[in-house]
């Protein structure tokens, strides 16, 4: 299960998906939206994706993880659109026979998501907004 969705993520769904009789462990990672960043008060977050490629890249992460570790199943669900503070923006679940592989693969997945998956986060804060990753100077602000 590798997908992006505009709906709030049901945390049970990826966990149920990776449940496997061969597994002795399920590791989960939940990324949540924070109310502050670099000293700014964040009042809203908005995620945008190139959805077809984002899902393809998420699936590629699953394939790469399965080459590196002995995992049973993996699920990654990433939220799009407006996400309220404290809600889950991404959920990763990995099952494996032994816990080390599940921990390692879930860590790998979140690091890869931040590098290669075409999803962008806009932070709206008091007095402005910014696309994260492009805010290395005043000139990058879009407004």
């Amino acid at each position: 299960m590798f997908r992006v969705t505009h709906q709030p993520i049901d945390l049970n769904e990826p966990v149920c998906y990776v449940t496997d009789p061969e597994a002795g462990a399920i590791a989960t990672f939940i990324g949540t939206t924070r109310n502050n960043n670099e000293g700014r008060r964040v009042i809203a977050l908005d995620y945008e994706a190139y959805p077809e490629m984002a899902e393809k890249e998420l699936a590629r992460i699953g394939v790469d993880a399965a080459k590196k570790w002995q995992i049973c199943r993996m699920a990654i669900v990433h939220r799009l659109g407006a996400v309220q503070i404290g809600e889950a923006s991404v959920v990763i679940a990995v099952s494996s026979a032994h816990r080390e592989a599940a921990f390692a693969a879930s860590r790998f997945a979140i690091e890869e998501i931040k590098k290669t998956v075409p999803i962008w986060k806009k932070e709206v804060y008091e007095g402005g907004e910014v696309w994260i990753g492009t805010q290395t100077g005043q000139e990058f602000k879009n407004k």
Partner: protein
Amino acid sequence: MKIRVKLFAILRERAGTAEVIKDLVDGSTVADLWHGLQKDYPKLDVPGIRLLYAVNQNYVALDYQLSEGDEVVFIPPVSGG
């Protein structure tokens, strides 16, 4: 040849559109397309931005040669998670 360009995030906002169809001469590369787009939409030139390039949902290099009907996306720094 006709190339479909999809724009996202900061590039979509700067261009004021999410999709552009661009007519290019045969043999044009991703780099040629990007230069042409910047002429049409000068605000796409974000100083210092580091872009990645995708054709038909696969990452490619700037010198990748385009074909009729390709879908091209210029990918600003990603920030999912």
